[in-house]
């Protein structure tokens, strides 16, 4: 890995140089989710893994699917025990004037459903569980 020099330009603005190439970069946010913008791309870098970045993924697939943002449940398309295939739309939410499909992240069986149509759910609220 090359050696990088970081020179602050002003609040949140940095110049990064590897000795040859030069970038203008922007950074903000807390240490556990530092947002960095360079050349049209955004990286969210967590503190623990500086040097071991990962793009933060939405719902971690621990079986439970959660609402990504405050939303209204429009339809629940599955029932407990139902087999679903990766990509199937399990639940349709609505927020910000748009429909937000909650899709199956993998082939699985629906274990439980934790919301009902018309309900207003908060971010992180578990909507249903897969086996």
């Amino acid at each position, binding site marked *: *890995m090359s050696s990088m020099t970081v020179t602050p330009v002003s609040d949140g603005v940095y110049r990064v140089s590897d000795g040859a190439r030069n970038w203008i970069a922007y950074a*903000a*946010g807390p240490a556990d989710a530092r947002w960095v913008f360079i050349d*049209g791309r955004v990286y969210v870098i967590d503190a623990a893994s500086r040097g071991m970045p990962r793009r933060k993924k*939405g719902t971690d697939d621990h079986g439970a699917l959660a609402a990504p943002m405050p939303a209204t449940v429009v339809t629940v398309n599955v029932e407990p025990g139902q087999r679903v295939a990766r990509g199937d739309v399990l639940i349709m939410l609505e927020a910000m004037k748009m429909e*937000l499909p909650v899709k199956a992240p993998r082939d699985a069986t629906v274990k439980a459903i934790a919301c009902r149509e018309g309900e207003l759910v908060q971010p992180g609220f578990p909507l249903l569980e897969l086996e």
Partner: protein
Amino acid sequence: MFRRILIANRGEIAVRVSRACGELGIESVAVYSDADARALHVASADRAIRIGPAPPSESYLAIEAIIGAAQRTECDAVHPGYGFLSENPRFAAACVEAGITFIGPPADVIERMGSKIAARQIAQRAGVPIVPGATPSDQSDAAIADAARAIGFPVLLKPSEGGGGIGMKVVREEASLLPAIAQARREARAAFGDGTLYVERLVERPRHVEIQVLADHHDQIVHLFERECSIQRRHQKVVEETPSVALTPALRRRMGEAAVAVARAAGYRNAGTVEFLLDGTGDAARFYFLEMNTRLQVEHPVTEQVTGIDLVRAQIAVAAGERLPWTQAQLSQRGHAIEVRVYAEDPARDDLPQAGPLLLYREPMMPGIRVDSGVVEGAEISVHYDPLVAKLIASADTREAARRRAILALRRYPILGIRTNVSFLLALLEHPRFVSGELDTRFLDSEGESLRASLDGDAPPEALAVARAADEAIRSNARPAVHGNDPWSALRDWRG
């Protein structure tokens, strides 16, 4: 001219209209819901008035509240922006009843053009073609097959009650016609409880090309040329440009004349847009009337950049009874403009809308770049409204120069704190089909996945180095958590 205009909208378009008022020496009055008390559109206006709680139905869609606000602030006109009440004939009528000028067409014209059926009839009467199609009154297989043959292959069989593409069947030849009719009817019944079918000529790889028109109250109507908006997804436009690479001067003239004919047949007033489906390119292309939008479009800036005309100012002048100051012959297109819509959404997660604070937000300021936005750094993208953050418009002498300019500007447009589609837009602007202008309305359906696939990637060393440096900077210099606990609530009523 008006003395004071109420802007019945929020976000970038409210800011845009209040600036036009400022340039005309007209006072602007912003309205706001509780969610928008700190919004830029409120601070930008000369006056501001609360109209209700966050839900649009109780604020930006609440006709009584808005008319009341206009009366209390003694406004003599209302600009509706786009969306919300802009195409609501009851709102236009309520303004007139309250003695306030509605900056837009008359209520009856909004109503007429708001009905797809009535609008198509008006277009046909004006001699403007619509996509051939029919709902045969005899719904037997044989009658539907006859209708399909009369329209000509390829045809589309659609549930008459449907929408959104569900249950649609494409039939390209005689052999598959009867089985397709049976299947389409079954699916229509399953999805909508009604098996009635509509038969329509299928336009393959159509482009969405629309014509801006402007009509004064003295029977003068001009068009301001086309906008191509083929890059759309779920009927939401993402990229718009003008001129369209698909148009030749002769085709442009024909489409412009068709749009003016529709506007004239409708008794149109003020700014409006006639949308067409374009089949093919060049002089031999066919175009079909789709619908007319009886308001300012989101994508109006590309027209402004290329014609040199300020459409919002023109809207206000026309509403005040002024004559259009130009004839059709005096209008021209110069150069090229491309607009990209920056949405708060995550392209890596099905374009899921994002809400949250703009921890860092800096708009690129460079020659040929215009950004229309309603936010500033530190603002909150609210869950209550649409996720449009800003429109970035790049103008240059050629399409290629405008495209490169848009790319450079997006590369210098940091938005941190929420995910946006900026990197997706960059991939799109660099897609070979976009570069060559081979567009159609299914572009994002066919290319969206490959565009998204190019977005993933680990943080490069330079990003990691900046993240670390920011640690140091933030440790020594704690940047305020503008959107943490609210230190502001104590700030009311300072005596000045």
